């Protein structure tokens, strides 16, 4: 089984602790003048997102986590799970609700997503930073009001609700930043 020694520790390294995959956030090497050295690390649980601290004796080994990130195309959701495809191998993978989490509201069929795989199965899903989605429901637009800066909620085809300018109508395509959930601009059909 692959493992890492403490001298390989660095931010982003994926390790197993108590049966869960973790990523190293911070690694501090401490050592008295003479004597035993230690690595004090902050690690994030890749399943729960929780950050905890751990202390290792320098020179000890820790099991490597079989974690990799890959870009997959989102295909569809059939109620059982979200289905993704590797566009090179055409291999399909299914992500469960725990893996998709809050990303679900941004997932549009055909979009490429960054998927973290743990032991070959999706552990988390990151939507593209920018998505183009159709407004499916919003109050009628106020014609000519392009300057007041007022906003109204709009429901998008994926179920996400974002604040949009008052002039937008149902059926329009908009561009949204998924990291902030903010409306950016109107989008053309071909974008």
């Amino acid at each position, binding site marked *: 089984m692959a493992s890492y020694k403490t*001298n390989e520790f660095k931010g982003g390294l994926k390790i197993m602790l108590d049966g869960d995959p973790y990523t190293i956030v911070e*690694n*501090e*090497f*401490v*050592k*008295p*003048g*003479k*004597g*035993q*050295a*230690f690595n*004090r690390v902050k690690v994030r649980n890749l399943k729960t997102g929780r950050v*905890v*601290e*751990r*202390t*290792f*004796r*320098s*020179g000890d080994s820790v099991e490597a986590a079989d974690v990799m990130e890959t870009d997959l195309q989102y295909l569809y959701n059939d109620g059982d799970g979200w289905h993704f495809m590797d566009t090179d191998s055409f291999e399909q993978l299914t992500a469960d609700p725990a893996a998709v989490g809050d990303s679900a509201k941004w997932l549009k069929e055909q979009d490429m997503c960054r998927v973290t795989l743990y032991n070959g199965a999706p552990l988390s899903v990151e939507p593209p930073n920018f998505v183009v989605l159709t407004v499916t429901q919003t109050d009628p637009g106020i014609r000519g009001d392009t300057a007041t800066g007022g906003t109204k909620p709009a429901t998008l085809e994926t179920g996400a609700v974002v604040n949009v300018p008052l002039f937008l109508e149902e059926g329009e395509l908009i561009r949204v930043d998924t990291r902030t959930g903010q409306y950016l601009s109107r989008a053309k059909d071909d974008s």
Partner: protein
Amino acid sequence: MPEVTDPWRPCADLPALRARARLLAELRAFFAERGVLEVETPILSAAANPDPAIEPLHLDAALTGDGPRRRYLQTSPEFPMKRLLAAGSGPIYQVCKVFRLDERGRRHHPEFTMLEWYRPGFSLDELMDEVALLLRRLAPTDPLPVARIRYRDLFYDGLGVDPWRTSPAALRAVAEARGIAGAGELDLDRDGWLDLLLCCCLEPELGCAGLTFVYDYPPSQAALARVMPGERPVARRFELYWRGLELANGFDELADAAEQRRRFRQDLAVRAARGQDALPADEHLLAALAYGLPACAGVALGLDRLLVCVLGADHIDAVLAFPVERA
């Protein structure tokens, strides 16, 4: 680490480079005034310090026709300097690069600059006084009040434990109570727990107001210091802290060849038990000790860390022209 710029560029800025040059000039003047001789000894040696807590780097090359191919980069110039002392050099000092594998972090760099000096006829107390005088000279803008505390008192006052007697299980409980994450999972002996508690709970406060000398260590941490026997034997050693950084290690030097050989053997046994490489003992040092090392005190001081303190930097890379990642 300082932010990444073009990797060909130095990490230390010009003021830091100037501060290093000033420091070197000043310390050479200090020792010249006091009649301490500057010396140089080999960086590559056929022998190495077997201390299990220090891992030397080595290279394999035929430097001589018949000698060993494997040469170790010094982890400290201690052994050859003691050979000079035994040969009658009188007081000596050296500024040199030393190398230690697997030491890298905010306060550690695998290649660092050490100032080491030896004072025949000095007691450990006299050497601590001289260290303080030197540091006041090197950091003239800081008043640097000096405090001294026994290792035992440091642990007793700070954590309520007796480093000679408290059991490893009780030390583990203290570590857990102090919130050292994952302490419950560590399997350490008494010295290991003491090291952990020192690093995590005590060191950050040491030397906040000036220079703090911690002295009289447990005999199990004697390294190359003499042990004073008694009801509670102590190793005559000190460590110097300033602003939470360990800067120097001083010893009332062990001069007994038989005891030195015994400690080498013990260190090698620990290395074997931990699966570390065996290292050739320095027979030249043992022969020099058998010939006779004058009673002396010696100290090694990390100049990079001293610069970190003087400049108020928060990472050792800020005082290095090119850290190992850019070397």
